């Protein structure tokens, strides 16, 4: 089959100066959770001040998620829980919420995403970043801005689009080339990608407890990032065979890029044309 599909589709876009939402654009980059989180906010008719307040709240959400769930910070509630020095009842309330979501994701992924099968104790990292970005985005939505994207180190939560009837277009990085895209998708709300090309073989196969993936990268789209993030983590372990599982999850779609560079995707994966 070779490497036929690795070509970003070309499209003549409407002139952004004409078709974009009127009003200011607010951008922000925040260092948090061991990565950089980029915000793009189309303020629209909302009060600029309200948008800035919402952005500050959104950043606080991310900082808080990092403080509670970091497995790198030795004294985070997550680390204490892993070492048996804190019970779930003693942990902050969002701990139980996230672990509940982890169970849902584990089931939907057929066990390919399993925080309980990680070496060193329970590790919800593959879901937390997406969950935190969902909450950050919620702050912006509540402020009444027209549209926004939150890109948490490569996983994006968004609503609206850069202009009326114009979806956010998200490039999926080619796992083999830093400056190239494998494809472009129109975001249905969440776009998450998992792969080993950035931070080495850190994705654990729950079946073996060892690092292991069956493709170069996996991308999952859907309405919410917590689940897209977790499913992408599972899909990169499962490889192309895992697409059947994604297909079974309503409103979620997946795409797998093999080590050789070929792309396989579910039937309704929202590739931009």
């Amino acid at each position, binding site marked *: 089959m070779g490497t036929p599909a690795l070509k970003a589709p070309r499209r003549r876009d409407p*002139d952004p100066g004409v078709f974009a939402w009127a009003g200011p654009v607010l*951008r922000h980059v925040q260092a948090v959770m061991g990565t*950089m989180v980029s915000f793009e906010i189309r303020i629209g008719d909302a009060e600029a001040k309200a948008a800035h307040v919402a952005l500050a709240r959104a950043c606080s959400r991310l900082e808080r998620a990092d403080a509670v769930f970091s497995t790198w910070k030795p004294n985070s509630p997550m680390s204490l829980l892993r070492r048996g020095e804190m019970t779930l009842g003693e942990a902050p309330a969002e701990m139980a919420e996230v672990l509940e979501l982890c169970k849902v994701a584990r089931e939907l992924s057929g066990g390919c995403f399993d925080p309980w099968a990680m070496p060193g104790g329970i590790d919800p990292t593959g879901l937390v970043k997406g969950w935190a970005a969902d909450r950050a985005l919620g702050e912006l939505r509540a402020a009444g801005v027209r549209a926004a994207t939150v890109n948490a180190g490569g996983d994006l939560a968004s609503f609206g689009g850069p202009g009326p009837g114009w979806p956010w277009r998200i490039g999926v990085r080619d796992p083999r080339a830093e400056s190239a*895209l494998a494809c472009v998708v129109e975001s249905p709300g969440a776009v998450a990608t998992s*792969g080993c090309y950035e931070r080495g073989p850190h994705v654990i196969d729950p079946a073996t407890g060892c690092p292991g993936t069956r493709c170069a990268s996996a991308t999952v789209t859907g309405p919410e990032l917590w689940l897209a993030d977790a499913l992408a983590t599972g899909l990169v372990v499962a490889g192309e065979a895992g697409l059947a599982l994604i297909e079974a999850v309503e409103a979620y779609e997946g795409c797998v890029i093999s080590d050789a560079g070929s792309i396989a995707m579910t039937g309704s994966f929202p590739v931009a044309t």
Partner: protein
Amino acid sequence: MRRTPIVLAGTAAGLAAVLGFHTESLGTNVVATPSGSSSGASTGKSTTTTTGSSSSPGRVSSSASTTTTTTGTTGTRTALGADVQYRYGDLELQVTVTGSRITNVEPVVDTAYDPRSSQINSYAEPLLVSETIEAQSAAINGVSGATFTSQAYVQSLQAALDKLGIK
């Protein structure tokens, strides 16, 4: 590397959205001149920029961030930008727009804080500059990929988008 121009074309179109120029400004040059903060002692961890027709908004109070506000009115030919402060250096881009096309992008300030960053920048910037100019048609608003570390961010496509967007 056939795909690269398309990627950075997106960058260019994103910039177009920020600058808010219109096609009727054909034949004129728009130069986005960097301005704003120049503090060498800043934490360099975060940058916030607002562009557009809003009145000046308030500061964002957040532990690891610096906030810069710029205003450029939609439809006008001059946009002011702020420099982007990264952990590993400052980068300012001067963008020249002719009509609805970006005709030149060049870094005007390139202060890397350590030799390794210099190396990264010298690799990343020529790519950014040449490819931005080459193709203009496909727009992307973000890049999804395996999670990068905050150190690796500076080399990422998302950083390129943020850089140009912030201008």
